[in-house]
């Protein structure tokens, strides 16, 4: 299916490093929350890094990306720094969104990562809209909506797939199927074995189920879908099977997951999968270890910088409502 050239060792090592940075950033968020320095809630993406990194590697810098409230990995995969993400979560003035968005709304428009949306499924029609816009402007940009398995049961998913199919738009719908809608197994509430892929044929869309923990598999599926989209062949649905290492959100210990299932998936860690691929390509454990060390140092530095950053500017509470920068509602 794919005409993408095979990922070579140096490129794969780079993707491995991106995943390693995301993994360590998410661990830092977890620790900072326990230390009382991150508040509200968080939905960590540990275990799902390969989807963001593999997909981004197959996209152009000007392609559009939309994510969910579990979106730290997508912001970073599109170029947001761990420091700016951590600062946002720690309510700092240097945060990615000036501390007005928080964990669930990380956005990095400079990388055309146009937002993380916390109402399930809401961003799928938006990705259809940016794809429509790309068509109107003749730019050959592709739009990608990443969403969870739970989103496949909400109306916006179906409205978005149908409209995208009817208008044959350059959009890729990527379901991160981590097997649980929140606390409930997706299979218990969905009349389809593959919640996204099995629905695609109803809209005459091609679908592919991939190992979401294999960065190469994700990359290859995305490269093929992006090529198809750019050539005017329309949307593709990709269902990437994966597993989250933590609970749904900060307050969820995920005790509802069977121990043997957790064990099985932890053995299929995206970092381990990539490491095995690297070693098969002749990259030494020592070289991989150096990348791990560099990722650790980068995130440690990001944590220190975020901690040292000034708190959110109170005046920002009244900026950015309107395009003129202000918030006046009356005369």
């Amino acid at each position, binding site marked *: 299916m794919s005409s993408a050239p095979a990922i070579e060792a140096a490129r794969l090592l780079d993707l491995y490093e991106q995943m390693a940075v995301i993994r360590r950033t998410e661990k830092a968020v977890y620790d900072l929350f326990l230390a009382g320095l991150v508040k509200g809630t968080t939905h960590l993406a540990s275990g799902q890094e390969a989807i963001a990194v593999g997909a981004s590697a197959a996209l152009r810098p000007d392609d559009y990306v939309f994510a969910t409230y579990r979106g730290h990995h997508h912001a970073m995969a599109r170029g947001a720094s761990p420091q700016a993400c951590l600062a946002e979560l720690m309510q700092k003035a240097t945060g990615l969104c000036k501390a007005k968005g928080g964990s669930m709304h990380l956005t990095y428009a400079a990388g055309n990562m146009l937002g993380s949306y916390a109402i399930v499924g809401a961003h799928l*029609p938006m990705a259809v*809209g940016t794809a429509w816009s790309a068509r109107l402007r003749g730019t050959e940009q592709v739009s990608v909506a990443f969403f969870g398995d739970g989103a496949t049961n909400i109306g*916006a998913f179906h409205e978005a797939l149908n409209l995208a199919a009817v208008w044959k738009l350059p959009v890729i719908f990527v379901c991160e199927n981590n097997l649980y809608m929140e606390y409930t197994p997706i299979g218990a509430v969905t009349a389809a074995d593959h919640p996204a892929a099995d629905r695609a044929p109803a809209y005459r869309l091609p679908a592919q189920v991939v190992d979401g923990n294999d960065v190469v598999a994700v990359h290859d599926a995305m490269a093929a879908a992006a090529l198809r989209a750019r050539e005017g062949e329309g949307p593709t649905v990709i269902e990437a099977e994966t597993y989250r290492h933590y609970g749904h959100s900060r307050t969820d210990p995920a005790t509802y997951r069977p121990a043997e299932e957790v064990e099985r998936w932890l053995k299929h860690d995206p970092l381990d999968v990539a490491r095995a691929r690297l070693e098969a390509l002749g990259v030494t454990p020592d070289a991989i270890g150096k990348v791990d060390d560099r990722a650790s140092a980068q995130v440690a530095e990001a944590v220190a910088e975020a901690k040292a950053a000034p708190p959110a500017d109170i005046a920002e509470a009244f900026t950015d409502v309107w395009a003129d920068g202000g918030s006046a509602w009356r005369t």
Partner: protein
Amino acid sequence: MASVKADAGTISYREAVAEGIAREMRRDPAVVCLGEDIGAAGGVFKTTAGLFAEFGPQRIWDTPISEQAIVGAAMGAAMTGIRPVAEIMFSDFLACCWDYLANEIPKVRYMTGGQVTVPLVIRTANGGGLGFGAQHSQAVENWALTIPGLKIAAPSTPADVIGLMASAIRSDDPVVFFEHKGLFASKGLLPPEGHLVELGKAAVVREGTDVTLVALAYTVPIALAAAERLAAKGISTEVVDLRCLIPMDMTTVLASVAKTSRLVTVEENPHQAGWGATVVSVVVDEGFQLLDAPVRRVASANVPLPFADALEDEVMPTVDKVVAAAESVANF
């Protein structure tokens, strides 16, 4: 005067919607329309008649009955260089895509720290008086008023439809544009090319000294008719057409109340949480010393809109109800 051309004709409110959109589409190739039956069909209210013929399928897009996809796609397009004008056929159907009006469109700029801007217009046919029953007759401008981050326009005349449409489409902020079903057949002067009405500027459409009526859209002609009847009773009535709910032109309202010392709001939305409550709260807070009488609100009753004409009249604001309210404060 030069502004009144010799050949200036009249235009209906219905035709003014298409004319207002067409003027902006001729000006700016980034303006694109989408909605149900808006293309060759010209819209169920014929408010987009002629647009498909002039601009074709690359500018006028027929959609499925998918309100979330319509407004969500408009939002995405607006983020990336397009100025979409999305039609939601009846304003009641805004409830089908309310997530976008409540959670997505008004918040995205703020929660991204200003990284994402959505210059879009959501047009919709609003209001009652036509016997369409409870799910096709509501005046829901107060729904939008509950959400910080949306601008809200609701014109009462064809000229204002064109002038406010131009400002709404040119605005870099999201605008919910309420077109009133009960006004579609009304006629007025066709304004010259380039006619603009700034968002958030109310109009004093009748001057008076005894009582101020603040009205919006469909209630403006009701207030004007009431003012005529009140004049016959010796009560001089000033009528303010608010034109927009956000920005809300309290400067004009407070200046009028300073003149008349008496205020009645004339609203079509239900009394509970209607826009007049916000107007009144500001007047009482900042202009209490201006008032010589209690403030009254004439609004629709707090019941679903009934079907039968007689029942609908009973529930909605009428000239009789406005006259009675204005008299009660004038004679206080």
